[in-house]
């Protein structure tokens, strides 16, 4: 009487006069999932802001984590009519130590007259925020939403481990569409030989004896000959009755999921840190780098990041410095490209590394330098890299760099450039990249 089917609502039910004990552990949990979703929906704006802050504060490589979101309690409280402070009230408290009737005590600073020991008031400012944990998936959802990614790309980035189905021998069961004809027929043949063999052996013996007896021509053997004829006919029937093919013979192509072969990639982040790039532009650039990084994590097992910032000269820096240091002065873009080239030659041979470059700038450059950039790219860098993406964060009209880069774009398929005013504009620069991956997977 212990176990009933687990699909039943009531798993175990013991009866006694008054009580029933019911196991509901297998019933649905997450009854609150809908309510949780509603909550998140309702406070979307606050959560979005928290996600944006988190993106600004996190390292690029640390992007895929949940996040603590805090919302001011005031925003989420549900109002009801309540008494405020003031008026007269008389409240009973426990734990008197040494008060006696008629004692007069200065009003405690909280001023509410209730709950003297209480630290926080329950209204006004100074409230604890309502803090809750956004799951990794929810966090990414908000991040993607901000970037206006197409759904296909979202799913692409949201699935963590991609598997590839590869052939792995044959199995004896499967779906009809996977039947392997040759293997099936071969095993049918083997089965037929095996099942036939005792009969064929006997048949040969019988035929031999028959031949011998017929040759001798003895009358005495007439009965035996008749017997042998019957036996031969019986054995032939038996052999003919062995089925040509049986379900037992069927063989199916087997496929197993195998993690996609992964390799290593290096991602160069190039950014102009001259005075004209303010923090807002840098934050936008950061999203651009994050997106490329996320893409690469889906494709490569190991990713290294190289941060190169430049104004008139370029240097390799750590991530912290990359996003937050501020320099002044003019802009020579070719310095960064040259450094990139040097680093590639030095540390990342193309035989071992897939190289991706992402460059963000506000389009400023020394006028003379732009043709140099074009030449560097066309002659030296582009042949080495998988993909080069360039974003220009500016509301203004294009300058020389953009026009020179246009030439590069027309020459190389794997070069993408985009002018960006809001974060929504970032995605198109990767469009081709993602399309390619979608086609491969």
């Amino acid at each position, binding site marked *: 009487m212990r176990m009933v089917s687990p699909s039943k609502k009531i798993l175990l039910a013991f009866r006694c006069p008054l*009580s029933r004990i019911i196991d509901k552990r297998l019933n649905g949990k997450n009854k609150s999932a809908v*309510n949780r979703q*509603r909550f998140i929906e309702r406070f979307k704006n606050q959560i979005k802001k928290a996600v944006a802050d988190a993106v600004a504060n996190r390292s690029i490589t640390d992007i895929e984590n949940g996040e603590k979101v805090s919302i001011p309690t005031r925003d989420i409280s549900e109002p009801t009519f309540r008494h405020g*402070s003031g008026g007269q009230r008389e409240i009973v408290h*426990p734990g008197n130590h040494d008060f006696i009737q008629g004692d007069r005590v200065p009003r405690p600073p909280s001023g509410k007259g209730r709950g003297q020991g*209480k630290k926080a008031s329950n209204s006004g400012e100074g409230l604890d925020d309502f803090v809750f944990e956004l799951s990794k998936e929810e966090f990414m959802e908000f991040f993607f939403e901000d970037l206006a990614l197409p759904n296909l790309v979202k799913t692409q980035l949201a699935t963590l481990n991609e598997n590839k189905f590869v052939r792995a021998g044959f199995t004896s069961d499967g779906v009809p569409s996977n039947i392997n004809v040759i293997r099936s027929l071969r095993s049918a043949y083997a089965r037929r030989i095996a099942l036939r063999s005792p009969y064929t052996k006997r048949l040969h013996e019988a035929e031999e004896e028959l031949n011998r007896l017929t040759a001798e021509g003895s009358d005495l053997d007439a009965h035996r000959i008749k017997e042998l004829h019957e036996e031969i006919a019986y054995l032939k029937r038996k052999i003919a009755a062995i089925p040509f093919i049986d379900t037992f013979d069927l063989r199916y192509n087997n496929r197993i999921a195998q993690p996609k072969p992964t390799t290593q990639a290096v991602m160069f982040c190039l950014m102009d840190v001259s005075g004209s790039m303010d923090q807002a532009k840098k934050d936008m650039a950061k999203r651009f780098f994050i997106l490329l990084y996320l893409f690469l994590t889906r494709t490569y097992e190991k990713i290294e990041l190289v941060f190169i910032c430049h104004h008139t000269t370029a240097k390799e820096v750590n991530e912290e410095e990359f996003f937050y240091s501020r320099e002044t002065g003019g802009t020579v873009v070719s310095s960064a490209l040259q450094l990139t080239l040097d680093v590639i030659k030095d540390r990342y041979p193309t035989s071992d590394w897939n190289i991706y470059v992402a460059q963000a700038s506000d389009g400023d450059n020394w006028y003379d330098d732009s043709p140099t950039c074009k030449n560097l790219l066309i002659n030296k860098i582009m042949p080495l890299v998988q993909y080069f993406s360039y974003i220009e964060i500016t509301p203004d009209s294009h300058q020389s760099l953009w026009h020179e880069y246009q030439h590069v774009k027309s020459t190389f398929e794997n070069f993408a450039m985009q002018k960006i005013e809001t974060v929504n504009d970032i995605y198109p620069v990767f469009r081709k990249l993602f399309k390619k991956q979608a086609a491969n997977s």
Partner: protein
Amino acid sequence: MNAKPLSTTSEWTFDLLLKYDQEISSIAADYRLDTYPNQIEIISAEQMMDAYSSVGMPLGYHHWSFGKQFLEVEKGYQRGQMGLAYEIVINSDPCIAYLMEENTIMMQALVIAHASYGHNSFFKNNYLFKQWTSADSIVDYLLFAKNYIAECEKRYGEQEVENILDSCHALMNYGVDRYKRPQKLSLRKEQIRQKEREIYLQSQVNELWSTIPNYQQKEDEQADQIFPSEPQENILYFIEKNAPLLEPWQREIVRIVRKLAQYFYPQRQTKVMNEGWATFWHYTILNKLYEKGSVTDGFMIEFLKSHTNVIYQPAFDNPYYSGINPYTLGFNMMSDIRRICENPTEEDRQWFPNIAGSDWITTLDFAMQNFKDESFIAQFLSPKVIRDLKLFTILDDDRDTHIEISAIHNEEGYRCIRQKLADQYDLSSGEPNIQIYSVDGRGDRSLTLRHFQYHRRPLSPDTVDEVLKHLARLWKFAVKLEVVTEDNRIKLINEVAIG
């Protein structure tokens, strides 16, 4: 009787639970506890969090506020700040109680005694519950409400429904009848009635607001009458019946929230008694189990640890103090009534001549059945309990620079403390007294509320505006709030126009 313990380890099994339940049940019967049949459900921690966040309703409609509660519970649980699952018990017939699978057999036995026999008998016998709730039909009604609201969401959009629910929740405490007995709730009847109600109500509302006068004379008469003829304290009821522009489905949602408020109303009025009663009985029953030899010393030590945690009362100056612990107060009072009956002192004979020396089971049962927190404290709070808890009162008057200790646990103070504590548990003095006073039927159709001040206590300005906006959303015309001071002056303090 039963010299061998029921179990010696802390593991529980279904067989064992059943044995404990039978044992507890027979002890409860000896003490003449009258209960609904029990339905004890074993659930996981996640499910317990779900149950917590839907205020213990076995099925609730969807609303973001429950999601908020869930996140709070989840956070607390994950940080280990709160032990989950002491008990959730539902006032239904059969009485549903939840046991969490992670708990030891001691906790399970404790919860069974506390919830399935303690709370259960309280639900079945206390006059407020008998009068105001229908334990046999609540689950049905919740199901009806959940389905109805889901249906509305499909038809009118989640946002629309959420708006109405938000507004209703803001006024939920003003959605109870205090003096009339509500109708029984049951699923089938409710569904049929809902249809009829929809048609009827809409026609009534239209009549009230009809702009074409039948007789000139009649209208003149109306002009002199204030509508409603008497102030209405059940604001949601008034809205449901009289709000001019609500759609029928919106009225039904108002009704659902109102019904739920009504269902929980007795619980809000009997917190001390209900918890005190259940705590008293788990304590008494488990001690009896121990006396009979059914449980081991280890079991008992574990039990006493939990029990002391439950009835822990930090003093007023302790950082953890957050008011009087209803478990402590209730348990102390219940235990004290037994003491007064069994071993009365001279003081008890003087204070409680009727119960001192009487049969404690009968007396306690009488107290449980016929009182609510306010009257229970006024009747039964003894000087001994006041001394034990060292209760004192603070008079806080905003016209005074200091606060004053107005009574302590001494001969002069007992009655005062008893009175003040009883008042403190009177919902009508704790919540602002706000009633619907009039509707300007011939003018701008505005609705006027009146706040009857008590001890000059004002409304909290942080929320008044918000709540009035919610009310205006339901009424769909301007809403005004007047305050009536204790010397009968009337002042308009707030007005929310409809945009």
